[in-house]
């Protein structure tokens, strides 16, 4: 009976995810445009990736992205979460507001930021220019394009983290907080010596998840810059997607997907171990 109950979920998942994922491994060793006969090319796809500057800059961008997402949103969310705990006023309303960005589609936010904030014609940037403040659209310049995208993603992401951290902070026994207060601890001492250590497991977990997700970033880059200008904001996911659907080179796409897929899976193993440990202490 158990097998019968778990079978539908397992079969659907293996059909859509596991099977094609295994096929990606095979595909990485072929040259194929999706229509003609596939040609076995050995490690050629990986060799040509290694010689492709766009691939290296995509990898570099992913690493930069990871570094940003392991620090900036986590720091903002920790400050906001701790403040929610100490202020104790309107916490429900604040939580709702902080949470709203994450429930709305990435495409919608991308277009609002692009058209109403970054655009030098219709956005806040235009308004600033009219007022004599020389701002430029960060998405239009190779040096700042990735940063411009990252700001949008951080903006959408930190509130969700803040609500999660606040949820964990509320579980900290109030006696411990009060005791520290009586000992004369200020806000920063309270946060640093009592609150943050108490929610360390949650922080670690969210950082592992950030690590995994930062290697999967796709939507905002694809919609806001398409990896441009001059491929300056390309990440591995957009690189692979472009190889497959714009250049018709599914072998290269599979090889690139394997590179970050394997990295993602490696971090997933860490994540699974953390989760299982939590399950069976």
């Amino acid at each position, binding site marked *: 009976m158990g097998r019968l109950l778990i079978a539908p979920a397992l079969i659907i*998942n293996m059909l*859509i995810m596991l099977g094609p994922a295994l096929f990606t491994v095979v595909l990485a060793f072929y040259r194929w445009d999706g229509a003609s006969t596939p040609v076995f090319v050995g490690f050629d796809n990986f060799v040509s990736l290694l010689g492709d500057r766009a691939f290296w800059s995509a990898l570099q961008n992913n690493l930069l992205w990871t570094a940003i997402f392991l620090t900036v949103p986590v720091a903002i969310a920790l400050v906001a979460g701790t403040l929610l705990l100490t202020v104790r006023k309107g916490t429900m309303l604040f939580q709702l507001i902080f949470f*709203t960005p994450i429930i709305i*589609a990435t495409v919608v936010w991308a277009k609002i930021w692009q058209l109403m904030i970054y655009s030098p*014609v219709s956005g806040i940037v235009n308004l600033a220019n009219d007022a004599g403040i020389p701002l430029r659209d960060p998405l239009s310049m190779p040096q700042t394009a990735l940063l411009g995208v990252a700001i949008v993603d951080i903006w959408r992401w930190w509130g969700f983290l*803040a609500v999660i951290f606040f949820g964990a902070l509320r579980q900290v026994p109030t006696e411990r907080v009060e005791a520290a207060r009586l000992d004369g601890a200020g*806000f920063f001492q309270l946060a640093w010596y009592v609150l943050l250590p108490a929610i360390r497991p949650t922080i670690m977990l969210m950082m592992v998840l950030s690590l995994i997700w930062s290697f999967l970033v796709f939507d905002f880059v694809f919609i806001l810059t398409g990896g441009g200008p001059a491929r300056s904001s390309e990440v591995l996911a957009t690189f692979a997607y472009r190889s497959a659907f714009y250049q018709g080179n599914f072998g290269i796409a599979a090889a690139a997907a394997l590179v970050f897929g394997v990295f993602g899976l490696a971090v997933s193993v860490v994540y699974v171990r953390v989760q299982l440990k939590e399950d069976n202490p």
Partner: protein
Amino acid sequence: MVQDKWAVRLGLGVLCFAAFCSLFPIVLLLLNSLKSAREIIISPLAWPMEFRWDNFARAWQDARFDKAIVNSLIIVVLTVFAVCTTASAAAYVLARRLIKRWQLATIYFLVGTTAPIQLFLFPLYLAYSKLGLINNPFGVALIYTAIFSPVAIMLLRTFFIAIPIEVEEAAEIDGANAWQKFTLVALPIAWPGVLTVALIVAMNTWNEFVIAATFLQTAERLTVIGAFFSLSGRYVTDWGEVMAAALIVVIPIVTLFIFFQRQFIEGMAGGAVKG
């Protein structure tokens, strides 16, 4: 005490500033969905001089939202139904360890919660085009079911684990088999979890971009997200119309969120924190 009061005020100030940052793009969305392009060029921040409700009418027609909403709803309903049934059954099996390799299955689904789409996207696309499943809402719903069920299973598993085993043992003494224990005893107790999963899956399906953009290509089949994306590419300078379209996309989800805040927050936090 004086210092405390000052600290609370400062904290409130910082939180209000953070809330302002979170809401600012939403304000821009609301204001500019009612303005003409000319007014937006003058200032995206100004109050509309003239309320242009026709932005919504044009957005509705140009994006063909009447079709797109039906397409989205079909896929959402199919996906929510498929995930809720298959995931709750699987979660029950894992929670009660009804199969020998429950540990392996748990690990498989846990890894599934973080698996990158690109790892299986390309062969899946090739297979779908070979099978003629491109532009097929059932095909897309099947992909969503596979992608969203691992998180759903992990979430529902915690709901089933929380049910005291004695309840089911009592049913067993009364002669219930595994199927009856699952459908008649466990599922009714765990239904808040199923509701939470249904809401989160509905939201994720409604909002999803990559799969929708890759697997649904003809104008007849676009989801709400696809229709909005295509509109924003065609009417590049009619910002008011694009913002009105964005608002149409957003309203159903925000309405759901307002009514089911707790489920949304618990579901998404649980999905991230507990697997």
